[in-house]
């Protein structure tokens, strides 16, 4: 596709439910990033993949958060036993080359998660 896509765009979950958020990066992009953006805040880094390898997951807030990119393209961010504080917009970004800082990141529209 022409850009990064994410699905679903909106997700409402009851507290305690598991959710899975999908990201389709730009074809051929090596790097993939997940960010969490709370209302009125900037994006906060969650995790980073280089191809299928998860090189940094230091931003994941708890062990309820899990991300994977098994074939080096599509990525899924899974949140288990969702809590109200997980409510946020989850942004996915991809970048052509390895080093994040040296290149533009292309962002998807985000998935807005609301936990009731």
């Amino acid at each position, binding site marked *: 596709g022409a850009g990064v896509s994410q699905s679903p765009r909106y997700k409402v979950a009851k507290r305690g439910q598991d959710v899975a958020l999908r990201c389709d990066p730009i074809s051929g992009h090596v790097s993939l990033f997940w960010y969490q953006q709370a209302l009125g*805040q*900037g994006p*906060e880094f969650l995790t980073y993949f280089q191809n299928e390898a998860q090189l940094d997951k230091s931003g994941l807030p708890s062990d309820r958060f899990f991300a994977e990119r098994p074939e080096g393209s599509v990525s899924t961010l899974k949140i288990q036993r969702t809590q109200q504080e997980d409510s946020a917009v989850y942004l996915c*970004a991809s970048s052509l080359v390895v080093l994040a800082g*040296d290149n533009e*990141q292309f962002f998807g529209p985000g998935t807005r998660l609301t936990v009731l």
Partner: protein
Amino acid sequence: SQQGEEDPQALSIQEGENATMNCSYKTSINNLQWYRQNSGRGLVHLILIRSNEREKHSGRLRVTLDTSKKSSSLLITASRAADTASYFCATDAFQFYFGTGTSLTVIP
């Protein structure tokens, strides 16, 4: 944690005026990037400035970088209503650290 901090948090100007936003950061960087986010949308890259550059232009955008003060500014000249958005600076480490953003409103 967020390394970049934008200032002001909110800015409202008339169409045609210039808008200036500032960003301060804490540690050494290789480069600094500015992004724009329209309400409910993802971020769009505007401009990248490397640590050995002091000023960069792109259309109506002018970015400065002062590594000694660990600060950057984004100037939007001749603003338009369509420039209404939130603007974020992002500094590189292995991943990006984004600030809290400046919310710009351009009044037609």
